[in-house]
């Protein structure tokens, strides 16, 4: 381990780092005791039911509001600072654009308001990829075209991290597929860290390689998508007789459902878990895993090592040691 000498956060390899992060509104805590790390260069799905704190986290990361407790750092700096403001792109769910500005003027606005960091060629290329006429008014564009223009504005800014609030929610499947392609290609080409919030789980599969799951204002899961899936098993079968050895013994059960003697359980493995005479063991899909965690708020949170911030809050890391 080289973490003793090397601080990835200081070297700019950590896009987001929260320690003891809390945000309180008049109605209560929207985020509480959040601690996680998002390495740079990832495409991270920010998942959670409505009211889980996704939007709050985004607004903290954009520096529009400040935390009530703890800290949130963007590439090692305060998100409210000038450096972070230039490094972070944000796309609101409604994909707002000035309806009376033409496409060309919308891009010009990006250039005028972002100064030297603006990449006109890249923004224009994204717009051109959708055959959007430059003279068209932004208000006359279709949903897909709006999204494309909004993404062009985002990537033209050349952000190191891009925050997207439900970017695909209002798109039909075909356009959603197209926009996902644009997003992935641009992010891969530029190495931009992307955080996209969503509550439609199938959107994540094949797009996000990192996950941050929030529920009730707290972090439930954080880490590489495949590692998180790999740490769990989906066990289905017939329950053994009472007193006999259960396949779930010694493992952490995240969620289990039984109907009669039939059962299905999502378990976090400790040691090996082999198929038995009356049950089978499978690797869960991302959607199954997320659903299990979202349905069981009492299950202990899991953060992979790369998602665990340095001391003092990483009880979950020990949990994961197996």
């Amino acid at each position, binding site marked *: 381990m080289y973490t003793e000498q090397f601080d990835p956060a200081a070297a700019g390899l950590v896009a987001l780092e929260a320690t003891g992060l809390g945000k309180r509104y008049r109605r209560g805590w929207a985020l509480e005791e959040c601690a996680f790390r998002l390495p740079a260069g990832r495409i991270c799905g920010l998942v959670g039911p409505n009211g889980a704190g996704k939007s709050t986290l985004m607004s903290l990361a954009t520096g*529009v509001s400040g935390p009530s407790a703890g800290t949130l750092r963007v590439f090692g700096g305060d998100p409210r600072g000038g450096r972070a403001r230039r490094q972070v792109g*944000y796309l609101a769910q409604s994909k707002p654009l000035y309806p009376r500005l033409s496409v060309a003027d919308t891009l010009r606005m990006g250039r*005028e308001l972002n100064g030297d960091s603006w990449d006109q060629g890249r923004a224009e290329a994204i717009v051109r990829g959708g055959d959007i006429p430059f003279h068209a008014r932004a208000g006359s564009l279709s949903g897909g075209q709006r999204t494309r223009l909004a993404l062009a504005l985002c990537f033209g800014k050349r952000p190191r991290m891009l925050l997207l609030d439900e970017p695909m929610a209002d798109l039909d499947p075909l356009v959603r597929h197209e926009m996902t392609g644009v997003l992935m290609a641009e992010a891969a080409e530029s190495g931009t860290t992307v955080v996209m919030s969503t509550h439609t789980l199938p959107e994540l599969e094949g797009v996000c390689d990192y996950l941050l799951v929030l529920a009730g204002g707290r972090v439930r899961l954080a880490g590489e998508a495949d590692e998180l899936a790999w740490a769990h098993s989906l066990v289905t079968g017939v329950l053994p007789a009472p007193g006999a050895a259960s396949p779930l013994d010694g493992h952490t059960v995240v969620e289990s459902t039984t109907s009669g003697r039939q059962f299905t359980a999502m378990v976090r493995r400790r040691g090996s878990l082999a198929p038995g005479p009356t049950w089978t063991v499978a690797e869960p899909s991302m959607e199954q895993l997320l659903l299990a965690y979202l349905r069981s708020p009492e299950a202990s949170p899991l953060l992979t090592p790369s998602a665990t911030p340095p001391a003092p809050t990483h009880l979950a890391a020990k949990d994961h040691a197996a």
Partner: protein
Amino acid sequence: MSTATLERESATDRDPGPRRLLHGMTWLVWRQHRGALWTGLALVAALVVTAVLLRNGAVAHQAAHGITGCPLMGGPERCSSSLEAIEEYRGLYSTPLRLLLAGILALPFLGGLFVGAPLIARELEADTHRLVWAQGITRERWLLHKLALPMGALMAGTGVAAWFGSWALEGAGQATIGLYWYSPTAFVSTGPAVLGYAALGVALGAMAGTLTRRTLPAMVLTLGAMGAVTALLTTIRSHVVSPVVSFGRSVPQLREEDWVLVQPQAARADRTIFDAGPCYPADDFDACLAEHGASWEYSEHHPIAHMRDLQLAEGAICLGLAALAVTFVWLWMRRRAF
């Protein structure tokens, strides 16, 4: 390289507009308000042209009829003999001049309604504040440009119009036309107070936008607030600067252009006004007054020399209110999350 490639690469370099002159937020504010700017310029131009035509016509008319500088009553011999000419002059020029001054007075209201009110409200309505706040400029810079540029433009426009309005009124002759600087129509629209009203219009509009978050209600609220402020200031304006109080044995010399707040009347030695009603039937009015100990004359007025002070004071009150409204918008923005 083919020409097609070159053409494609310059797709947004071809857009017209004074690129070098306007950049950053200045460009965006201009781009968003250019329609309003042209409309405003056309309005100011129309008012200026009207003012020039009215003044020239009025000056020529007065000269032709020999009534230059004549009040309707109490003037020298040449004036009292041309009463009909003065009446005719008033009939011709009074209404257009009043309309001109009312038009100038309307500018701060129109600016508040059509520029100030949508300033924040339209952004909130279309969610575009999230778009612009996600760009590379600070929100403080955004708000500063958004408020200062329209405010400056409106103040400049109304200032120019008011200068011409004042010039037209001067040419028309206050006493001759029967329209004085202290009348509600002329007081704001011929002096520096209009600058304060212009700033207040935009500031109240922006504040209304943060409160209602919708353009139309913000416009209604702006109109109501501006109307209320105007009504209030019209009521209190004579007390903003202390009037000249005359108290003595004789009636003070008042000029035609003076704003008389309390007509010269009988008063007692303790400066309380005496109701002279009971003395009217008396044979010797003065003796009757002396009998009641009211042999003094009391009056309050603003000489025309107070005009600029009064207008400046009212402008300053408006600027102070505008500063409060801007502070409110500023604090709102600082507190507002996405």
